C-alpha cells in the first residue's frame, strides 16, 4: 500500500504557561490533543474549527514550522522528526503553504517575481533568480496573472491579486500538498469565488491536494472531500464532507452548521451554543 500523502498520529502540542509575577505561572495550554488525520492524494481535507480549536497549530506542525510535544507527522510515509535538517529541506519541496493574509505574507520591498521564486531558491535547486524566471512566469500564468507581474511590487496589486501571487509561490515547486490556512477570509466577497475557483483549477491542473483550514463551512463544501471538525484541540467529528454537514452528529458541528447566516431563507431561530472557546 502506498503511504498516505499526509498523516498525523497522536499529534499533541502543549504550550508552557507564561510567567505571571515571581512564583506564578499560567497553566500550560494543550493546543492540540492527540490528533490523527489522514490526507490521501486527490482527496482534499478540510479542518474546520473556530479560534482556539488548534487548527492553525496543526497547520504549523504539518508544515514542520513547529515541533510536536508528542506524536508524529508523516509526509508520504516519512516521519518529519526522523529527518536530518538537510533531508527535511528536500522534503519541503512536496508541501507548501498559503496564508490568510496576502498583505502580510509577501515582502513589500521585494519584486513579486522574487517572492514567487523564494521556495525554489530556498531549496537550492535553482542557483539564481534569473535562472528561476521561466518557472516564475509559468507559475504566475497558472494563477491568472501576466508574467510581467514579476517585475512589479506587491502594493501595486489588489488583495485578490496578491493572494494569487501567494498561491503562485506555493505551487512553484509543484508540491503534492498545499496547506491553505483561511486563504479567502481576508478577501472581498466579490473576489472569494475567483480565488476558490482558482484553487479548484490547480487541483485539476497540477494534481495538488489541499489541507484546507477554514471556519467557513460553505467554502469547505466546494473544496473538500473529507472534513475534520476540531474544538479545543480535539477532533470532535470527521467524515465525508457531505455527510458531516448534512447529518452532523456532534452538538458542536450541529451548532456550527446552524450558525451560518442564510440570505435566501427567512431569519429562523438559531440553535444556541453555550460558552465560547
Amino acid at each position, binding site marked *: 500500500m502506498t503511504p498516505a500523502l499526509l498523516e498525523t498520529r497522536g499529534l499533541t502540542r502543549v504550550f508552557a504557561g507564561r510567567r505571571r509575577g515571581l512564583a506564578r505561572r499560567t497553566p500550560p495550554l494543550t493546543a492540540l490533543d492527540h490528533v490523527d488525520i489522514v490526507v490521501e492524494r486527490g482527496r*482534499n481535507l478540510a479542518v474546520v474549527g*473556530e*479560534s482556539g480549536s488548534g487548527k492553525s497549530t496543526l497547520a504549523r506542525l504539518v508544515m514542520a514550522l513547529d515541533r510536536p510535544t508528542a506524536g508524529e507527522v508523516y509526509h508520504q510515509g516519512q516521519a518529519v522528526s526522523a529527518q536530518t535538517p538537510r533531508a527535511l529541506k528536500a522534503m519541503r519541496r512536496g508541501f507548501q503553504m498559503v496564508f490568510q493574509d496576502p498583505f502580510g505574507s509577501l515582502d513589500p520591498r521585494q519584486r513579486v517575481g522574487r517572492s514567487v521564486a523564494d521556495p525554489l531558491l530556498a531549496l537550492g535547486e535553482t542557483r539564481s533568480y534569473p535562472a528561476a524566471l521561466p518557472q516564475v512566469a509559468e507559475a504566475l500564468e497558472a494563477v491568472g496573472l501576466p508574467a510581467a507581474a514579476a517585475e512589479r511590487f506587491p502594493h501595486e496589486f*489588489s*488583495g*485578490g*491579486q496578491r493572494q494569487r501571487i501567494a498561491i503562485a509561490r506555493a505551487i512553484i515547486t509543484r508540491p503534492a500538498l498545499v496547506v491553505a490556512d483561511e486563504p479567502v477570509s481576508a478577501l*472581498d*466577497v*466579490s*473576489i*472569494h*469565488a*475567483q480565488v*476558490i*475557483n482558482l484553487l*479548484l483549477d490547480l*487541483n485539476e491542473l497540477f494534481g495538488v491536494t489541499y489541507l484546507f483550514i477554514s*471556519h*467557513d*463551512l*460553505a*467554502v469547505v*463544501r*466546494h*473544496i*473538500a*472531500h473529507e472534513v475534520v471538525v476540531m474544538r479545543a484541540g480535539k477532533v470532535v467529528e470527521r467524515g465525508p*464532507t*457531505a455527510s458531516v*454537514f448534512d447529518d452532523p452528529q456532534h452538538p458542536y458541528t450541529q*451548532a*456550527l*452548521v*446552524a*450558525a*451560518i*447566516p*442564510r*440570505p*435566501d431563507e*427567512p*431569519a429562523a431561530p*438559531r440553535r*444556541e*451554543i453555550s460558552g*465560547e*472557546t
Partner: protein
Amino acid sequence: MGAGDALLAIENLSVSLPGDQGPRRVLRGLDLEVERGQTYGIVGESGSGKSITALAVMGLLPDRARVEGRVLFDGHDLAQADERAMCRIRGNRIGMVFQEPMTALNPAHAIGRQIAESVILHEGASRKTARARALDLLDLAGIPDPASRIDDYPHQLSGGQRQRVVIAIALACRPDLLIADEPTTALDVTVQAQILELLTDLTERLGMSLILISHDLGVVASLCQRTAVLYAGRLVEEGPTAALLARHAHPYTAGLMAARPRLTARAGERLTAIRGTLPDPESVPAGCIFAARCPYVIDDCRAAEPALHEAGDGGHVARCIRLEAVA
C-alpha cells in the same frame, strides 16, 4: 423615498478625501432614510463607502475630509453641526459599535468602570448610580452573572463577551439609533450568531433603530428590514430586504448572491465568480461604476451613469438601465 417617520435622513451625501492624484471621492450622492425602530442594513466591500457613511453620521470623519449634502437626525443637520452640538447627539442619541472590541475598550480599566464613565458623562449620574446602571447594562447585553464580571478587565473576557461590553457602553445613553459597523466580523461563527441575536433582541426591546454595516449580505439579510447595497462609493440598490432577496435587481447584487458558496455543493464544484477587480478609488470611470465587471453591459452603460430605477414594491430601486435583462 417618502417623508415617513424618518429618524435619520441622509440627503445627497458626498465625501472626498485628499489623495495622491487629487481628491478621492469615497462616497457620492448617497440618499437614504432610516425610520424609527427600523433595522437597516448597509452592505458593501472595501471601498464601497459603507464605513464612511457611518463615520459621517457620527461626525467622526477626519478634518481633511470634504463633506457635502445633509445628514438629518431627527430634523437636525449633523453635517453642519459644530463639535459641541455633535457631542450632545453622539453618545446621547446615537451609539456606535465597531468591528474590533479590543480597540474600543481601554485595556487598563475594569469594564464596569468604562460603562459607568459613559453613564456619568451622558447622564451626570453619581458613581453609585452609574455602577448600578452598569450592572443593568451588562445584564441587558447578555453577560451572565454580571455582578461577578463587572470588575473584570477586557483581557479576561472572550471576544464575544468584549463585544457585549462594547454594546453595553453604546446603550448607556439609551440611544435612538445604534450603528454597528461589522460587529461580528472579528468573531467566531457561533459567537457571531449570538451577537446578531442580541442586536435584534435589543432593537425590539428598546425600540431603537439599528444600522448594521457588513460585507456579508447573509448577515444583513437575516436581521434587517431594509437593505442598501453600496459599490465603490455609490448606492446601487436599495429596498425592503425581502424584495431585494426575491429579486436582485442590480447585476452587482445578483453577482454577489450567485458567488456565495453553497452548503449543498459537491467538492470540486466551481462558483459563479464576478470577473475583474474593484475599481481604483482614484480613477472612477465615467458611466456605470460596475460596467467593467458587468455581464449585462451595453454601450449605453458607459455613456452616462444610470439613475436609480424602480425595481419593485416598497421603494425598491436599482441604479441600472438593464433591470429587465437582470431579472
